[in-house]
């Protein structure tokens, strides 16, 4: 059996094993390859930076644990960036699996930076309904979310006395894993209420969001773990996304190698048979 035959019939578990090793090694022994900040990520950073200090910002964390490696670093960095500007955050979640993740970020960073729940930030929790929630939320925050994440009536939260719809909000930050997410927020909230909006999304979804970026419907866009790492660099915070980029690089080179090798074997065997 020739080498080409052997490789073509290779048990896929060897491919799996090599993938695992090539992802694991850079995590244990970082290469510290430099990260360049792309245009969309830079625009995301600038859009948040341009929000006046002390403003009210809405964060919609529309993701679940499956997308956490890409989106949690973005959420961390966005919350940290906004808290450093003394912005007040109203958070909500539209994916069932996500609320505890977002709540954890808010409390952890809030405690770290001396922020007070109810005054500096509020987590309204989850509602089902996708676009319908966005529409209802846009017209009345307290009508859609009568209680917060823990069941406290929002009428008892000082931050919610200052705002009840998008009129008082300076920026919508959407961290999105799919549907419902950025597309729906652009369609239902950004277009209707003309709220400035930025998006951090999974890499899978981000190519579809470039039209919104170019049209101005989105002011900035973070795509995947690479986008999260670029934002971490912009905010001078060395986080898990940055630390994962070496592994990302080695895995991508491996995939490229597999594509090329697979085609070389295919065409050489086709040539030999022909």
């Amino acid at each position: 059996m020739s080498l080409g035959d052997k490789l073509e019939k290779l048990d896929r578990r060897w491919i799996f094993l090599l993938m695992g090793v090539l992802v694991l090694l850079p995590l244990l022994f970082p290469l510290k390859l430099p990260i360049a900040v792309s245009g969309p990520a830079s625009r995301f950073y600038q859009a948040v930076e341009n929000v006046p200090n002390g403003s009210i910002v809405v964060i919609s964390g529309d993701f679940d644990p499956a997308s956490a490696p890409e989106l949690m670093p973005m959420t961390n960095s966005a919350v940290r960036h906004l808290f450093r500007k003394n912005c007040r955050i109203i958070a909500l979640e539209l994916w069932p699996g996500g609320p505890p993740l977002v709540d954890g970020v808010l409390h952890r960073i809030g405690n770290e930076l001396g922020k007070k729940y109810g005054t500096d930030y509020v987590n309204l929790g989850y509602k089902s309904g996708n676009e319908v929630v966005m529409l209802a939320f846009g017209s009345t925050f307290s009508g859609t979310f009568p209680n917060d994440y823990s069941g406290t009536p929002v009428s008892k939260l000082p931050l919610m006395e200052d705002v009840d719809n998008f009129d008082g909000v300076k920026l919508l930050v959407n961290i999105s894993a799919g549907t419902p997410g950025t597309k729906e927020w652009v369609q239902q909230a950004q277009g209707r209420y003309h709220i400035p909006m930025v998006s951090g999304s999974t890499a899978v979804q981000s190519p579809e969001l470039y039209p919104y970026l170019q049209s101005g419907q989105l002011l900035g866009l973070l795509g995947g773990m690479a986008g999260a790492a670029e934002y971490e660099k912009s905010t001078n915070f060395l986080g898990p996304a940055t630390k994962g980029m070496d592994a990302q690089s080695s895995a991508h080179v491996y995939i490229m190698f597999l594509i090329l090798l697979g085609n070389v074997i295919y065409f050489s065997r086709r040539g030999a048979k022909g």
Partner: protein
Amino acid sequence: MDLLKRHIPIYLTATVGILTILSFFIPHPLVATPAGWLLDWAIVTVASGYVLGAANVLKVNGEDVIKQKADWPYKIVLLVSMIAMLIVGFFMSGGTHFLDEGTKFTWAYNNLYVPMQATMFSLLAFFIASAAFRAFRIRTVDAGLLAIAALIVMIGRVPVGQWLTKSLPEWAQLPVWAGWLLEWPQNAAKRGIAIGAGLGVMATGLRIILGIERNYMREDKS
């Protein structure tokens, strides 16, 4: 009876749909207030839909256990874990505080739900590697274009792309090529798809509202 079972629901869909569309253009309370009621009703009805789905999971898997179908012992695991979550969530986690830090429900979320969901999806990385080797074949010019674009983006969007081409002039560096490709030609195609899909959704929405599309009513043609 036909009026009640078929026609009234269709008229209801039309009325609700038209009111929702009008609320986009007319902020007057005469339109906005009933539209708001509809949104509130839709939110709670969708939530009930999730509960309905879970009840169906119980029913289907319960039947499989009783009839001892394939993998029925594992279905017992499914049913027991589901009922356990329900008991913990409704009676043992402080009601509306069920997701607060330290509750039993939060423990289940952090130690069962999160790791399993995250790991299920992480398996895809391995399968994508296998598929790249076995199935990605560049047989035509179109496939070649796809492959070139994929390789530029894959390498250009990670630090190794910057490292490999850092000594080249800026216009020739891979991250710049990846960025240009994403912002211009890729963008153009996605926008074309978006416009086409938008027109399609508008047409389908109008067909549903006007009662032409009635598959959601699951009418029995016999």
